[in-house]
């Protein structure tokens, strides 16, 4: 029977309308010594205002450089069951689709070897299994891998790619996010399991600019589905939206970030040449508006949470690239981008930080992409590329010819 701890401070976190991690740990603590001790230590941390976890170190599965994150209690005598409390990351399926059989299977493995606590999912996308002992790691890996699962990424590696649910359930997906995510995971297996880069590199795939996977805020490389043709407008459906009470001028036209829409005499018009494919209008008027023409992806680079410098959002680098099987063009572009970063970055420097340090020109030249208006991050104040005398010379010579 696991030891019971008094947890008056943690109990406060069970009050209110929201789900509570404390409630879940308490449930696990009814049968798990690890979860019981975790509750005791967390309560003590809250009381003393001191974290009692130590991270990192030398834990893992033989041959793998990622997937296990070492965590130790700094109070092992007081909380012996969490002297080791390592995290195991398991590569999630594209779009987070599971069968109940698969979920039972992985939970049974975790009940057998770990605390029983999981995090579905971590911000990178992996299934996170919280709390196990060093001695169990090889056995856990053997059990997972024998059932077709593999470890996820951690450390200075390609992190497990993730994606939105894409065409599986969403009619607005411009690209097959699930397949791209799977194919990139296979393509970068070596880089995922053997950390060899200056720091982490995260890839997320979103089917459209609505970006349900929040790639633009979280991924070093965001692959976002887009289209080349005009937005098709069904004027009868526009009228239905107006009849239904939608204030089209306020909610659609004035919310358009590029001001490319107009609404007069009950008719909605789009100046497609000025549209940046943000998806706001389409997501609001799903019955009236629809993308058309060639589909592909935009590649954005550079978002990250604050570590070395403050948080960054992604930046359009490749406005349009084909994203069709076998995705050779996409894979080659991502490899080139990573090569440039790996060559120039300091330890713990993410690609967004490196672009700010070295400038866009160096990156664009390396990956063979021309400077384009879509790459301007802050209009009228962002010299995203500096032209050299040679560039001007080329322009003048061309004019003379």
């Amino acid at each position, binding site marked *: 029977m696991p030891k019971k701890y008094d947890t008056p401070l943690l109990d406060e976190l069970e009050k209110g309308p929201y789900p509570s991690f404390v409630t879940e740990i308490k449930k696990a603590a009814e049968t798990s010594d690890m979860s019981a001790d975790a509750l005791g230590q967390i309560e003590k941390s809250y009381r003393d205002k001191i974290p009692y976890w130590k991270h990192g170190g*030398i834990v893992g599965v033989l041959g793998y*450089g990622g997937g296990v994150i070492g965590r130790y209690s700094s109070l092992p005598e007081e909380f012996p069951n969490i002297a080791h409390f390592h995290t195991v990351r398991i590569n999630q399926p594209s779009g987070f689709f599971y069968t109940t059989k698969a979920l039972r299977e992985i939970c049974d493995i975790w009940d057998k070897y770990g605390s029983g606590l999981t995090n579905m999912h971590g911000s990178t996308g992996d299934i996170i299994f919280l709390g196990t002992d060093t001695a169990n790691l090889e056995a856990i890996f053997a059990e997972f891998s024998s059932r077709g699962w593999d470890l996820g990424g951690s*450390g*200075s590696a390609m992190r497990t790619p993730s994606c939105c649910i894409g065409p599986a359930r969403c009619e607005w997906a411009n690209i097959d996010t699930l397949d791209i995510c799977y194919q990139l995971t296979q393509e970068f297996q070596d880089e995922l399991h053997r950390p*060899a880069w200056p*720091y*982490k590199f995260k890839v997320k795939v979103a089917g459209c600019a609505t970006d349900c996977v929040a790639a633009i805020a979280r991924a070093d490389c965001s692959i976002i589905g887009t289209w080349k043709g005009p937005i098709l407008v069904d004027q009868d459906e526009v009228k239905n939206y107006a009849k239904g009470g939608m204030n089209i001028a306020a909610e659609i036209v004035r919310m358009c970030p590029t001001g490319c829409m107009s609404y007069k005499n009950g008719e909605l018009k789009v100046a497609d040449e000025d549209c940046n494919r943000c998806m706001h209008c389409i997501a609001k008027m799903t019955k009236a508006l629809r993308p058309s023409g060639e589909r592909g992806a935009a590649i954005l680079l550079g978002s990250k949470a604050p*570590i070395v410098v403050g948080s960054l959002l992604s930046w359009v680098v490749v406005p349009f690239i084909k994203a069709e099987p076998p995705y050779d063009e996409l894979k080659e572009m991502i490899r080139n981008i990573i090569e440039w970063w790996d060559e120039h970055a300091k330890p713990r420097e993410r690609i967004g930080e490196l672009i700010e340090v070295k400038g866009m020109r160096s990156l664009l030249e390396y990956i063979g992409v021309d400077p384009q208006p879509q790459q301007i991050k802050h209009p009228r104040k962002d010299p995203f590329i500096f032209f050299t005398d040679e560039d001007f010379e080329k322009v003048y010579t061309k004019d003379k010819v």
Partner: protein
Amino acid sequence: MEKEELKEKVYAYMLKYKGKKKLKEKDVCKGVSGEAGIGADEVKKALREMIDAGKLMYSYAGGASSVEIPSEEYLREKGLI
């Protein structure tokens, strides 16, 4: 150069920096490649075989990874000694 000889060079390189510098895989490949006058890709292959065999191992601190010579404790835990 024979692969076993190359592995010895990699190990000697790791020993030289043990406790002094956290080496990334790339640092080892470049360093040994420069010293031994062979391609970095060959060094990488040898290095990875050594990692697979437990002769070397990946380590992790502050979110960044490096390559290290494993401790006796680690080798015992993996059943390698």
